[in-house]
């Protein structure tokens, strides 16, 4: 469809999901353009996986609407153009890797003439070519996750959902996945990346949305989100009541000796230092820096909890 071809990869309007009395997702409205790498962040239980399952039609929304590639969610034909790596990844242990990918080619469905090429390319992309003929039951968790990624890539999907795609991977594997995500984006595939690994999201995503308690509490490009300054202070001699008084300087990530004020104007640093000293603290180091995604994330959650 011409209209669908021009439509964004994902568009949701007030998408809501309740499980009994629990609100898992409260009015998600967002748009993910084609070819974009979109990071969906949030603490555990924020509603990230629920959102993905709603978009894929595995759950039914309580209210609201959503479209994938211009078609309403749940449309069978659209699923030919989508790849999905679930958070809970599990594949048939009694099949070998090649057979699992053949199964996904068959269900996609791809013409049989293309299977061989698709499977070889997917195995090569995730680095499993050497294990193609081994039973999945002999695979480590990390290898199974790589296989899941390969399964999500068969058929050159226009939109890929990756739900915590590196949860079982070592640093090398994580690096590989970031490269794969960038390659997907370069060839025009939109990637919806669910993750709570903030550094990973920061490195690859064009835009992010932060979700908490089922609501999007912030969204935008990295530049838009990370405009502030964070200040890290190494300090001793502050008791709990003193630390509480420092809340006047904005959201605080308290790691004992290290205090990070996740959003603090650089002009207020001298005032902060004198306040700490007045409260009986001893300051060893003060290092202002650009806000990281982690700073911003903690700041947003802190504000959301108020």
């Amino acid at each position, binding site marked *: 469809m011409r209209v669908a071809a021009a439509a964004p990869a994902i568009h949701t309007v007030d998408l809501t999901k309740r499980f009994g009395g629990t609100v898992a997702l409260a009015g998600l409205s967002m748009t993910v353009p084609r070819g974009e790498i979109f990071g969906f962040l949030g603490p555990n239980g924020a509603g990230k996986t629920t959102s993905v*399952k709603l978009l*894929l*039609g*595995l*759950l*039914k929304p309580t209210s609201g609407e959503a479209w994938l590639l211009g078609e309403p969610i749940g449309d*069978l*034909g659209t*699923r*030919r153009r*989508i790849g*999905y*790596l*679930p*958070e*809970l*990844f*599990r*594949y*048939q242990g*009694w*099949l070998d890797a090649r057979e699992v990918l053949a*199964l*996904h080619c*068959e*269900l*996609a*469905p791809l013409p049989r003439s293309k299977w061989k090429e698709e499977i070889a390319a997917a195995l090569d992309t995730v680095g499993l070519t050497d294990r193609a003929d081994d039973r999945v039951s002999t695979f480590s968790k990390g290898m199974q996750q790589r296989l*899941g990624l390969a*399964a*999500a890539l068969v058929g050159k999907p226009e939109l890929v*959902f990756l739900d915590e795609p590196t949860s079982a991977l070592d640093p090398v594997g994580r690096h590989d996945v970031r490269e794969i995500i960038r390659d997907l984006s370069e060839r025009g595939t939109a990637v919806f990346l669910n993750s709570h690994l903030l550094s990973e999201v920061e490195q690859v995503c064009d835009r992010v949305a932060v979700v908490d308690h089922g609501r999007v509490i912030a969204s935008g490009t990295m530049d838009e989100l990370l405009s502030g300054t964070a200040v890290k202070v190494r300090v001793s001699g502050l008791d709990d009541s003193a630390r509480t008084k420092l809340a006047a300087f904005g959201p605080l990530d308290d790691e004992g000796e290290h205090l990070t004020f996740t959003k603090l104007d650089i002009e207020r640093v001298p005032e902060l230092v004198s306040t700490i000293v007045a409260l009986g603290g001893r300051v060893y180091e003060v290092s202002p820096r650009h806000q990281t995604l982690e700073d911003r994330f903690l700041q947003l959650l802190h504000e959301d909890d108020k």
Partner: protein
Amino acid sequence: MPPVLVFARLTVQESSRRRLLLALVILTLLVVGFSAWGFNKITTVTRSDGTLLPHDQVSLITSQLLIVITFMYSGVLALSAAVVAGPLISSEVESGLLLSMLARPVRRSEVVIGKWLGLAILVTIYAAGSALLELTAVNLATGYEPPHPVELVLYVAAEGLALLSLGLVLSTRLSGITGGVIALVAWLMAWIAGVVGDIGTGLQNSALQNVGTISHLLLPTDGLWRGAVYAMEPDVILAALRAAGTAGRANPFSAVDPPPTAFLAWVVVWFGLMLTLSIWSFRTREI
């Protein structure tokens, strides 16, 4: 290949690769071997005057022993069907195995029908294969063959399919262990309810008879078992049971009449209902 057939193939492939089929084949060969040896012993039994039993008597004894052996086969089949069908969908939902497949252009009804079909093929092949082996062994050992062997296979297979269908319905909502146990207990209860119905027939008590009738409608396994028994009863036994009147019908290992056509029609409807219920239940399940 359409998704229904893909899921059917996967189910057969999984049973094969997990060596379930191999285990069943080996155990069945053992049972066939032992029972053939046992049946052969009947032909060597001597009377008080030292002569061998006449062929008619050997056939009669064999026919009744074959019913007991078949009861064991139908039990193995029902048990296997319930145990395999119980986790058929639930375990794949719990483990996440179905997630990536359901994100493909696949209808949930295709998953349900495909899995049912795959297991139904296995149940039917097992029923036909084990019956062929056992009946051949009995025939070689004693020269006896039951009057309606094809019907026998159909009834035993249908009993297995009924347990499979019940297990599948439960599997769309309950955990594998729970579904399997419920299906198994339901099968035993249906059998006992059938016995209660027999007692009602013997005592000519309509309330007890109704227990049997209702149980046959809710879960037709016992009714199908009676069909299998009828297919194995020689004419001589049937005549004797009929002559005994209601008392002759009060026995779970005997059947005087074939299952009524209305019951068989209900069995077909029952299978349709179970599959429809499974599809509806899985379609409305949130994963």
